[in-house]
């Protein structure tokens, strides 16, 4: 049975400030699953996670169990790193998860570290999350004091360490190889892949990088079984999902919701509809890196596979006659991304909204790859003049050609993350750009 609305796993302790403390967490059953997991063989834990169909909640939606399986069997030193660098615009779940339930993250990490035979483990927390850093560090200190972390955890002879590493302001550090460089005390610039971190990551050792929400689901999988977790989902995506709904809805919020819920249900049933009695113009389905949906595409489930393959979602185009090639002729529809659902009503100035998204990517490009460094800057400049009423007749073609020149030509996905929404908005809201440019041309002529 798929989970009904109201099923709460990782958000069950939201609102219970007492659960931030170790005593409060234990009172609600916390660290019970850890004892069970420590009695299990590491490979049995990994097998449960594989059976659960847990998919990464950071953005890519990759199978967690499969990722864990990439660590070479004979590895001497393995690391587990939690990516808590949440900074994808529209996404605000990991911050809430850390704040309300820091010990659940720690418990999930200890269990996962046991599965991976990882001794030295790290949480990379975003620098701007100052309140959450204080809460998390305190929780880690408590867990050490109680013997859940350290040289001989709960007398089992296992050694598991956890160090909280604070970032200092850089969106790019959410990219896993940039994160690893930052964790090593370098500028946060992404590495070439391969080698993938599971083979060669932190300090040159096999490293698994998992998102906060992903790791917080692990205790539930071990407690109730991978099959149970899988049943909650949609078949190929187990469990529930944290969604952050912002923008023009009556009741924005951070909600734990069934994997198969549609965008119309999210907007109307969960968030009380579009504000001011208006209609939806566009929905960004999973953070600003993802191509938008239009009002006719909202009956699609907010789930990893559906957003990539559902034919009700129009493919992203480079020009009205040339579809964007993801490689091997695959079309790009959109992706579930990070769970950041942004709703834009029918009064929204689309070119202006797109300019703000491009301004973000231009600011955050790390500068390593020329197509991204130069391209995001030009996307911002051209989008700005269109939004400001100074657009030129060729600007739509120019924006599309810059975006197409970035996509697929950079070391990491930040370039794609700028190019995809640019092309996506041009595909579905071309008329808005044409109208803005036509008005500019008319203004100049008069």
């Amino acid at each position, binding site marked *: 049975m798929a989970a009904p609305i109201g099923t709460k796993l990782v958000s069950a302790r939201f609102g219970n400030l007492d659960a931030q403390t170790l005593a409060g967490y234990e009172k609600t059953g916390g660290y019970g699953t850890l004892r069970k997991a420590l009695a299990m063989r590491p490979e049995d834990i990994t097998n449960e996670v594989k059976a659960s169909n847990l998919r990464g909640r950071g953005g890519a939606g990759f199978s967690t169990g499969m990722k864990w399986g990439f660590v070479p069997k004979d590895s001497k030193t393995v690391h587990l790193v939690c990516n808590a660098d949440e900074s994808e615009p529209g996404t605000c779940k990991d911050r809430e998860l850390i704040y309300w339930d820091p010990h659940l993250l720690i418990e999930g990490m200890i269990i996962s570290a046991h599965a991976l035979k990882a001794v*030295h483990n790290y949480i990379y927390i975003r620098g*701007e999350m100052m309140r959450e850093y*204080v809460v998390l560090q305190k929780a880690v200190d408590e867990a050490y004091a109680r013997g859940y972390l350290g040289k001989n955890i709960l007398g089992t002879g296992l050694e598991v360490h956890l160090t909280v590493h604070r*970032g200092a302001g*850089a969106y790019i550090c959410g990219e896993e190889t940039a994160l690893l460089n930052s964790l090593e*005390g370098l500028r946060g610039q992404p590495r070439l892949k391969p080698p993938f971190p599971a083979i060669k990551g932190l300090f040159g050792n096999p490293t698994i990088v998992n998102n906060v929400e992903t790791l917080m689901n692990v205790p539930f999988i071990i407690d109730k079984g991978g099959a149970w977790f899988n049943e909650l989902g949609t078949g190929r995506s187990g469990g529930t999902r944290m969604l952050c709904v912002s923008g023009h809805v009556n009741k924005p919020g951070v909600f734990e919701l069934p994997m198969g819920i549609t965008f119309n249900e999210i907007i109307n049933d969960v968030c009380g509809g579009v504000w001011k009695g208006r209609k939806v113009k566009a929905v960004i389905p999973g953070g600003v890196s993802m191509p938008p949906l239009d009002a006719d595409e909202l009956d699609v489930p907010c789930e990893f596979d559906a957003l990539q393959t559902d034919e009700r979602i129009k493919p992203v185009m480079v020009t009205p006659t040339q579809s964007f090639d993801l490689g091997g002729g695959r079309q790009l529809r959109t992706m579930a991304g990070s769970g950041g659902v942004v709703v834009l009503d029918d009064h929204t100035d689309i070119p202006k909204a797109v300019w*703000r998204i491009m301004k973000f990517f231009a600011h955050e490009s790390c500068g390593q790859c020329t197509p991204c460094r130069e391209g995001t800057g030009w996307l911002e400049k051209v989008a700005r003049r269109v939004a400001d009423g100074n657009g030129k007749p060729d600007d739509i073609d120019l924006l599309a050609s810059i975006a197409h020149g970035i996509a697929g030509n950079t070391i990491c996905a930040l370039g794609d993350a700028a190019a995809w929404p640019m092309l996506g908005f041009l595909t579905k809201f071309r008329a808005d750009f044409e109208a803005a440019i036509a008005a500019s041309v008319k203004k100049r002529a008069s």
Partner: protein
Amino acid sequence: MSLEFSADAQKKIAALCERYTPSPAPKQPVVMAALHIAQKEFGHLSDDALRLVASTLGLPYAHVYGVATFYTMYRREPSGKTTIRMCTNISCMLRGGYEVLAAFEKQLGVKAGGTTSNKAFTLIEEECIAACANAPCAVAGTTYLLDLTPEKVPSIVADLEKHPSPESEVV
């Protein structure tokens, strides 16, 4: 060398140097925390502060300079006691984030990026701070300013002036 870390800071940095023991260069990862600590101790990261971090960790000055200039939260210039980071990214913009930023600019008498003459505030136009469900929003140290409107700004500024929320205290 004109600057020195306090005894507390030295202890903290020494403890952190033990946390990355599997690394072939175990002190290098501590550079980020050491820069946060230096910022707390000295207010901002002057050339001397960067030299102190470099000598403390046995790293080249150029390495420390490179790290300090990559991340936006490291400040090379003095700033106000409380830094207000006002988000104007998409979710905040859609609900009036730029109007709130303008209200902060008016109330503080500085443009985004500036510091008030009494050194009480620095105002920064920030990228998404992961509080989008309460947009428009800002963060000042450990204090979140949520569901903002231009009308709320004067009393927020007055409160923060009375009870500063310095982000450099978080290390």
